[in-house]
């Protein structure tokens, strides 16, 4: 589907071509003021990512990376392909069905520590184990990760409908490279959250409080260097739809010559919630909006745009609509702000035009079928044609107090 964005006559985004310049903004209205995007393709802190449908080829607007996990302190390693890049969470989760390594189990008292990690689309369930994690030239030692396995421990009654196979997850794992060093909270993850459990070999699991060091960790925080955040760099989707697009996951912000802020605007984030503020259509979502590469569409409410008829919640306008919203850092008034122009296309047409397409710049989903929306989720389409910086809470990074986003 063609959109109204300006297409450069010369700059064809080749994804992995060296420092490809993908000019233009996300819409024609700001293309003259947005500097050309530069995607970093070389460096020991750069991992290739691809929006390619994932292991089953059925996952639209999701970015995947390869991650190597090793038995701690050894060279016994395994590369895991097709791991979803998620700026909305923190920590590495891998399907046990693709794992071949015997990893040491994290314990809670005398019993295995097991996690039920909540995502909106479904929980992940499985034991917390320890691995060395390698991506690009970066390495983190003895990282608590979650190994997703529905049957190893009894989830009954404590973890509903976990997504623990490739069919339900659409990926071999999830790497959360979000705003926080731990997946749940510091200095501990309370038992009241029902996230971590003490699971006896036979019997019922009991919610426990996990100290921050026990929690599943953002591997980036544990890198020896380049550990203050990441940059997600994805090119423009030419014509709004492509089979796949490729970009980079860059580690560190301002730690090397290839990961400077480069004039990006910094949007500080509420350190409790990981949210900032978006104003759209006269509604201000105060501390209720977020950038999330793990959401595979723009997710917001606009009652003037019709939904598709298949019940999926995707928007299906008769023709592409151009929209605008304002993002404001936290707290309002003391951090960056700026306008974002974006477009919503007809999802039915986008999906049905060519079943092999996986990258869509204009996918939107209605966040409330019955009114009263309460969030604005800038999903993966936001990341196209942008370098999005994610600075980790508590880390030192150029541009301001962490945690922050910058773009």
């Amino acid at each position, binding site marked *: 589907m063609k959109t109204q964005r300006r297409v450069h006559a010369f700059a064809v985004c080749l994804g992995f071509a060296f420092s490809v310049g993908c000019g233009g903004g996300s819409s024609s209205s700001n293309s003259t003021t947005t500097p050309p995007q530069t995607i970093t393709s070389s460096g020991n802190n750069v991992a290739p990512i691809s929006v390619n449908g994932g292991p089953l080829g059925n*996952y639209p607007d999701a970015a995947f990376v390869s991650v190597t996990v090793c038995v701690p302190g050894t060279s016994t390693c395994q590369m895991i392909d097709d791991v979803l890049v998620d700026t909305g969470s923190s920590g590495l989760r891998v399907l046990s069905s693709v794992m071949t390594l015997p990893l040491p189990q994290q314990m809670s008292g005398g019993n295995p520590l097991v996690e039920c990690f909540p995502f909106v689309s479904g929980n992940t369930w499985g034991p917390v184990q320890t691995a060395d994690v390698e991506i690009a030239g970066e390495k983190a030692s003895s990282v608590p990760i979650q190994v997703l396995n529905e049957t190893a421990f009894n989830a009954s009654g404590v973890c509903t409908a976990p997504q623990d196979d490739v069919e339900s997850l659409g990926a071999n794992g999830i790497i959360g490279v979000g705003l926080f060093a731990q997946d*749940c909270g510091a200095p501990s993850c309370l038992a009241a959250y029902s996230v971590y459990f003490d699971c006896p070999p036979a019997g019922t699991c009991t919610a426990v409080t996990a100290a921050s060091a026990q929690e599943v960790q953002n591997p980036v925080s544990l890198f020896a260097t380049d550990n203050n955040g990441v940059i997600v760099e994805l090119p423009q989707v030419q014509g709004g739809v492509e089979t796949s697009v490729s970009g980079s996951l860059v580690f560190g912000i301002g730690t090397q010559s290839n990961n400077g802020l480069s004039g990006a605007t910094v949007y500080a984030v509420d350190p409790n919630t990981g949210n900032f503020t978006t104003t759209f259509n006269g509604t201000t979502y105060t501390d209720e909006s977020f950038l999330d590469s793990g959401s595979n569409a723009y997710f917001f409410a606009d009652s003037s745009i019709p939904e598709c008829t298949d019940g999926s919640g995707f928007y299906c306008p008769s023709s592409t609509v151009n929209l605008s919203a304002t993002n404001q850092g936290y707290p309002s008034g003391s951090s960056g702000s700026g306008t974002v122009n974006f477009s919503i296309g007809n999802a039915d047409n986008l999906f049905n035009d060519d079943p092999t397409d996986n990258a869509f710049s204009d996918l939107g989903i209605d966040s409330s079928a*019955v009114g009263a929306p309460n969030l604005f989720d800038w999903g993966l389409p936001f990341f196209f044609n942008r370098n999005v910086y994610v600075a980790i809470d508590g880390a030192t990074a150029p541009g301001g107090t962490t945690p922050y986003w910058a773009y």
Partner: protein
Amino acid sequence: MGKDPDSGVYILTRDGGKVSRKKIGRAEGRKSLRTKPERALTKAAERPGMLPTEIGARINPATSRPTVLSNFDNAVSEFIEIPPMSKRQVSCVTSVIAVSSVVLAIAFPAWAALGGDVSSVQADQVRLQGSLQTISNASYTVHEIHAVGGAVVREYVASSGKSAGKVFAIAWQGPWPPDMRQLLGSYFDQYVQAAKAQTAARMGRRPLTIEQPGLVVEIGGHPRSFFGRAFLPDQLPSGVSNEAIQ
């Protein structure tokens, strides 16, 4: 939520004659958790005919953990019951309801599953500690619970009509999702099946919107910040719109 009844994050203190609320732990100052309830209260206060009260209750004191609440036992024990307000007094209270409170030291039904009978859930008080606010109008009463772990749950109980005395809607927000099995009660299985079906229809990780003839569930957010609501569209009291539930 409610798996650990041993810690509370919402406490009540008294300074002279003024009673105030204070959050403990990281939830303190959490903007979204502070503004939403206050927004709801403010909205409710603006509704004609609304009778807002705020009840600060330490739920089931016998089960509370002394290490958490002992410092505030005295403050709590000093709370006195305020006589019911006359309608003329209500207008005074509505103007300040968001910043100060009438506080009653009484136990109160603390939790109800969707579709459940509010009077049948006394046993669930064990699961929650924290402050409880109620807002009533002609159609329903909102029980707003500041629960352990920083979540805020609002339960809507119909005052009259076919769903009188029943929970017809629940809205919540917090760092982590509440116990959906407990919240949704007999609707839990329907929710799980619908969620699976939606995921199967189109691969993706995204907020959830379930809209069925007898059940609406909407969940959004991300780790450390979840939002959600569930209601029974055919059980809404007459004149109550979907937008009221948030």
